[in-house]
């Protein structure tokens, strides 16, 4: 489809990407089969690429695509004897919903993407497939694009997606929005997938680039959709706030050569003020009307960073206090690490280092390069250069992306070079 995209095709490609998730969700709801839905959705888009440049884009492109896709699905089911029984069942459904309305007078399409979010993030699916399915089904990325986003070969990704779809179909993972009683149990899984997608894009775990704007951009887009669908869920607002407030800094996080620029050295004029403002408004929503959730608290921390004129003038006491709250909500060594860094800024490097050293026994931090890098920074600031060098070396052994490694090499050089 993309290969043959002409000028007109490119013009409507944005429309397709927007419509794809909606279209797919509607088709999955009607036919209960993700594979069939994907096939007829892409056929409908192909048909649009042929017809729209000639006949013009219909007034309601989404309804046009859905009508076309539904007709193709029924044709396919008729041709396929294995689906005969299902067709009979679906025919009842089609009769019940009446004749397909003409595309340009159809009532507003129901937004069924929420069901798809919960299906893609179902805990019965392998964790590695959940984000991939969301990018494929809700963001409308092609399998090679999803593979690129996950840094795996397209064949590996294709197998993962095929296996996940097979499980959805054959184990009959339902397409449904969890009830109000189940939502507290199921929503965190959906948020976790989206948050992981964003963090992988924000700080790539490997590869030549520090950031993966393709991935962060899609994560922001998907969380925006989720927030539109679940505006009353404060943690969804919290997650959207968090990723906007962090994403707002992404231009300033690398220099012209792609090298890492630390928070304290960033040109704050390059931070996206509109995004910060939007994020700050959402933080208020996330923290109002009940006990805070972990995403809301993290967003509040990000907001304090974004609102500070420079590193020294940052409200470190409040950030450290928010980390105390976060540590209660989601106790983890990584949160404790971040808290220690904030305490170092509030109470001095010695205090921070003491907290970091208390964490040295944590299994999860032993192979976590930010832990060793943070220790290196504090030891260096305290003038303990040989210990700092050892910590930086350890971080370098573990670090992922090339810009992060280059940064650690610079720090290592700075601690091993004889003072001038």
């Amino acid at each position: 489809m993309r290969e043959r995209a002409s000028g007109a095709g490119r013009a409507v490609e944005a429309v397709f990407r927007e419509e794809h998730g909606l279209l797919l969700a509607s088709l999955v709801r009607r036919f209960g089969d993700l594979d069939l839905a994907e096939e007829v959705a892409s056929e409908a888009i192909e048909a649009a690429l042929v017809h729209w440049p000639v006949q013009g884009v219909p007034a309601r492109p989404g309804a046009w695509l859905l009508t076309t896709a539904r007709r193709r699905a029924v044709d396919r089911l008729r041709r396929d004897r294995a689906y005969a029984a299902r067709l009979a069942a679906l025919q009842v459904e089609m009769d019940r919903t009446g004749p397909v309305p003409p595309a340009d007078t159809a009532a507003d399409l129901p937004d069924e993407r929420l069901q798809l979010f919960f299906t893609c993030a179902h805990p019965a699916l392998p964790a590695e497939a959940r984000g991939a399915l969301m990018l494929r089904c809700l963001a409308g990325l092609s399998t090679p694009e999803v593979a690129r986003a996950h840094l795996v070969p397209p064949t590996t990704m294709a197998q993962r997606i095929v296996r996940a779809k097979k499980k959805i179909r054959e184990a009959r993972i339902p397409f449904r929005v969890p009830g109000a009683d189940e939502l507290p149990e199921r929503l965190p899984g959906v948020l976790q997938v989206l948050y992981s997608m964003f963090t992988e894009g924000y700080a790539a775990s490997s590869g030549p680039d520090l950031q993966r704007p393709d991935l962060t951009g899609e994560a922001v887009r998907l969380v925006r959709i989720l927030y539109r669908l679940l505006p009353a869920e404060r943690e969804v607002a919290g997650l959207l706030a968090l990723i906007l407030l962090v994403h707002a800094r992404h231009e300033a996080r690398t220099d012209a050569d792609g090298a890492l620029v630390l928070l304290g050295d960033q040109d704050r004029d390059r931070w996206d003020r509109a995004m910060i403002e939007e994020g700050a408004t959402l933080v208020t929503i996330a923290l109002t009307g009940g006990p805070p959730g972990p995403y809301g608290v993290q967003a509040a921390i990000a907001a304090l960073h974004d609102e500070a004129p420079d590193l020294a003038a940052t409200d470190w006491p409040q950030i450290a206090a928010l980390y105390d709250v976060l540590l209660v909500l989601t106790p983890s060594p990584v949160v404790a690490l971040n808290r220690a860094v904030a305490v170092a800024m509030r109470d001095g490097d010695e205090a921070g280092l003491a907290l970091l050293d208390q964490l040295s026994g944590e299994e999860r931090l032993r192979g976590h390069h930010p832990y060793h890098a943070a220790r290196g920074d504090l030891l260096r600031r305290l003038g303990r250069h040989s210990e700092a060098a050892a910590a930086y070396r350890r971080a370098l052994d573990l670090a992922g992306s090339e810009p992060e490694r280059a940064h650690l090499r610079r720090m290592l050089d700075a601690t091993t070079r004889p003072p001038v």
Partner: protein
Amino acid sequence: MKYMLLINAGAIDAEGGAAECDEQDWAAYDKAVREAGILVSGESLADLVTATVVKVGADGARTVVDGPFAESREVLGGFYVIDVPDLDAALEWAARCPGARGSGSVVVRPVADFGA
């Protein structure tokens, strides 16, 4: 849609039963499954020491040996086959099963449907 709930006992008590739930829990669960009208079949297996393995080799020779002796701590203790609309419903019933508690676990497997 039929699902098999394979009940793996974790810790085993002196009598060979699951250590973390009692007869009453099982009786209550069994009653609930029956009353919900979803029960296809279900059995509790006798103690593992009573199990025997039969194999037939390529030459047709039959070997019968004592066992199997579990290599893991998990021991298949019994099963239910239930008929429910989808996986979420099956997972809900699996979660209610006493065998899922503590060191036990329940594996949920859809029963293959060959369109018969």
